């Protein structure tokens, strides 16, 4: 009975770690089958690797503790055979572990790659320095739209993500849902995942891409199917014209300043695709690619001087009078 608790200790530790509450950015808290396969393999490699390390270190420490023995005790046929048995045994165990690991890795990789499905929801993600452009591709062109830095997916449905790069190599990584997929300029990589649990999952750029690589986060939000359809329909709509005078003044500020040179708002004359699409800016939870919360204060600070928040980003400072800024913020907040 005394050995039972000791045997249960590693399991208890694992269970404790897994039950630490769901994390929104954890590769060992999978929310989908792809990430689950990767997480299981992660645990397997960790445990097997730790065991091998402990055994090897144990033998080393034992040898050190035993100290040197006289040479005579190592010579002779029996001693030779004894030593050989140990060596063959260790080599056999090592080979076995490596072969099993290889097979496991191969089958996991195959399972990950075979998650394709022709009816998957298709999102084309283009990485730019330092923001994410997401286009929802539908066979019907009228059902396509573009958004930035926040993608929604329906729970329980496979999603195909085609990743491209607009400039340098980036990497699309949502730890809860899948491994890393590189965005290589001139080439389209395709991956599939599925979210089995509703929630907000944090993603990150996982390949150094320049000055603000560390601030190139994005969100993948898994919605129940009804909520996802409502979100999709809303995103398809063009921006409504502002109803109040403050919003109209803000729209004037937007069009007469530099904003329209880089940003598009569907439904207006602003159609530039240099920077993120702002048609439904107010429906997003974060700004500046996951760096700021999407509230009035940070939005104002970002519009006035993005260089102080994300230095090196390609959006210039936009000094303007305070009443213009107030009107512009009201207009941007109306872009739900």
């Amino acid at each position, binding site marked *: 009975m005394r050995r039972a608790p000791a045997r249960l200790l590693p399991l208890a530790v694992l269970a404790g770690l897994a039950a630490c509450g769901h994390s929104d950015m954890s590769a060992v808290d999978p929310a989908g089958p792809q990430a689950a396969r990767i997480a299981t393999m992660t645990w397997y490699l960790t445990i097997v690797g730790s065991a091998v390390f402990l055994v090897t270190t144990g033998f080393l420490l034992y040898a050190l503790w035993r100290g040197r023995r006289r040479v005579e005790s190592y010579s002779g046929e029996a001693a030779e055979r004894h030593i050989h048995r140990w060596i063959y045994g260790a080599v056999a165990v090592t080979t076995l572990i490596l072969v099993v690991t290889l097979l496991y890795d191969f089958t996991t990789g195959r399972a990950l790659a075979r998650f394709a499905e022709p009816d998957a929801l298709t999102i084309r993600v283009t990485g730019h320095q330092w923001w994410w452009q997401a286009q929802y591709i539908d066979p019907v062109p009228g059902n396509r739209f573009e958004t930035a830095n926040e993608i929604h997916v329906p729970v329980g449905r496979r999603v195909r993500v085609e990743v491209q790069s607009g400039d340098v190599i980036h990497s699309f990584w949502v730890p809860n849902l899948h491994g890393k997929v590189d965005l290589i*300029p*001139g*080439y389209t990589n*395709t991956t599939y995942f599925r979210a089995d649990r509703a929630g907000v999952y944090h993603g990150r750029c996982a390949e150094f891409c320049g000055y603000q690589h560390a601030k190139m986060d994005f969100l993948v939000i898994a919605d129940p199917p009804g909520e996802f359809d409502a979100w999709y329909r809303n995103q398809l709509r063009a921006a409504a014209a502002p109803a109040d005078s403050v919003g109209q003044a803000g729209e004037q500020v937007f069009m007469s300043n*530099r904003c329209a*040179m880089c940003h598009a708002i569907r439904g207006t004359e602003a159609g530039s695709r*240099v920077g993120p699409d702002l048609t439904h800016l107010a429906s997003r939870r974060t700004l500046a690619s996951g760096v700021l919360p999407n509230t009035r204060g940070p939005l104002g600070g970002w519009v006035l001087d993005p260089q102080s928040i994300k230095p090196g980003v390609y959006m210039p400072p936009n*000094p303007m009078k305070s009443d213009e800024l107030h009107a512009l913020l009201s207009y941007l907040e109306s872009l739900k």
Partner: protein
Amino acid sequence: MKRTSVPPYLRTLALAAALAACDREQRSFSETPPGATAFPAVQTTDIQAGPKTTDPVVGTYQENRVAVSQGQTWYEQFNCAGCHAPGGGGGMGVPLNDAEWIYGSDPENVFATIVEGRPNGMPSFRGRISNTQLWQLVAYVRSMSGLTPKDTWSPRSDHMQEGRPKRTATPQPQLP
């Protein structure tokens, strides 16, 4: 017969009413004139009236390779290439990679051209691009005709590949 004449006070009143309808020209002296910008105005010459007190601001980007490269990005993204062609060969707009400069080739001249616009189709970008972006564009435009140092030129296009790779992992659908 009594001579009916307008009493003096009525005449004064009528005259005053007539004169009040004529407004003086309204002039506001404290308003910012349209040409003023926060950035010190660029001079296209270094001769000044009166004592020379300020050096013309040129922007430090003429020998900066990053600026030339970034200017190339703006050249494509703000659609300068639409009229002047990628690489400056010209089309609807004049070529920018030759030695012929109608309005001057100094950085200040090119800056003024972009900011002010020019007759026959060059739009004015005043207030639409930041000054940093403008100076980067100026550097790139001048580099197209070789006016910036050679080590600022990009040895190749900024794009990794000019087009789709010939073989891709996902087969492309064949159109009839």
